[in-house]
């Protein structure tokens, strides 16, 4: 589904991603962990071209990311959920969800609204369709953001620390939505420090440090039996 080959990313002199190669299969749930500044967000953002790779190749669903023409096509297939939700504050939850299907997919409004209401039901927010983001709690906002991304019927979902801006009591409601999504067979790449989530739904855990993939394996192996010292050191701090 996603194939990354020898990816490099530099911000000026700062070399943030160093020769990253990674294949993600259809329906796979990949969890990325690693210390702050290790390049996790940058890697995710390269996958939908929010950051332009300095070197290397990224192929999403058979479409190589190589020019402006392809970018919007790929982005429409790749949903992204941000740490700080990034809902559109001047629009209701419903309008947040229907905007892209109407503008990008040219879907009729009635159809887009029907899909949006179904998605809101799915994330448990049927009664919030006409609320503005400001009237929603953080957990509710993040669930609307997930519904917004799903409305484009993406083939892959990217999550960048989706629960780390949330109060503890709201984390579960967002993780539950993500779990349900994983169980339906969505291909997912998730940057998170929620180890319980990683264990329960992750097919593979990737540990990144200083712009490199240091180690990868099943959650079980990484959490109980990491080979690399750096991985062990990191895990001992967060587990």
């Amino acid at each position: 589904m996603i194939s990354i080959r020898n990816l490099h990313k530099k911000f000026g002199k700062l070399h943030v991603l160093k020769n990253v190669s990674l294949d993600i299969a259809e329906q796979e749930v990949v969890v990325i962990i690693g210390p702050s500044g290790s390049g996790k967000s940058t890697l995710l953002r390269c996958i939908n071209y929010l950051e332009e790779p300095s070197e290397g190749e990224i192929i999403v669903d058979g479409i190589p990311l190589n020019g402006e023409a392809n970018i919007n096509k790929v982005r429409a297939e790749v949903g992204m959920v941000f740490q700080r939700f990034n809902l559109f504050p001047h629009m209701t939850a419903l309008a947040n969800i229907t905007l892209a299907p109407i503008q990008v997919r040219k879907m009729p409004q009635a159809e887009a609204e029907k899909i949006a209401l179904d998605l809101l039901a799915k994330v448990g927010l049927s009664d919030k369709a006409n609320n503005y983001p400001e009237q929603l709690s953080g957990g509710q906002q993040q669930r609307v953001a997930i519904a917004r991304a799903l409305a484009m019927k993406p083939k892959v979902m990217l999550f960048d620390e989706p629960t780390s801006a949330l109060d503890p009591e709201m984390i579960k409601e967002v993780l539950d939505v993500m779990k349900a999504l994983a169980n339906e067979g969505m291909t997912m790449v998730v940057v998170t420090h929620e180890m319980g989530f990683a264990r329960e739904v992750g097919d593979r855990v990737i540990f990144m440090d200083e712009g490199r993939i240091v180690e990868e394996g099943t959650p079980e192996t990484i959490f109980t039996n990491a080979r690399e010292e750096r991985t062990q050191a990191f895990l001992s701090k967060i587990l």
Partner: protein
Amino acid sequence: MNFDFELIVRSFPLLLLGAGVTIQITALSVGFGLLIGMFVSLARLSKIKPLKLLATMYVDFIRGTPLLVQIFLIYFALPIVTGTRIDPFVAAITACSINSGAYVAEIFRAGIQSIDKGQMEAGRSLGMSWTQTMRFIILPQAFKRIIPPLGNEFIAMLKDSSLVSVIGFEELTRRGQLIIARTYGSFEIWLTVAFIYLIMTFTISRLVDFLERRYKIDDKH
């Protein structure tokens, strides 16, 4: 010195006509300025280098030269190049619009840049183009924030429009001059002219306050 109140009463209708013209120039100029400013600010923020350079040069030129000189350039210098005289009204509106456009462009740019970067990223990540994201997400949010500085620009333009009196265009200041030339009532007339400007700017600033408060409430939802 004796104060000729009668003169004020007699001149008032003429001065009001002038004030009407002043409002007209201001509204037209800021109106065109808004159009120019929106495109110029987008050009300044775009990734297309020549467009960006051109927009930056325009803004720098206008903000770095006096409006009076810009008026002279259009009214006196331009006809030498084109060979046709320009109507004072057209020259006044053109000069003021081009001038206002540069200031409005900076207001727009600041407004757009004040919107969280995550908004553009969220729009783009959904597959929307830069233009679509600007139109549906960034600009509607920026508009609310630029109401106060736009109000200030309107007030500044209203005052600066007195400069077009130098090319003989009969707005408020010019009317005052003409009346004084006939009546020598310098003190009374300039006082009245100042008072009329004050009433206009005061009204506009209250109007802007009102709009601002309304949108603030609107923002809360």
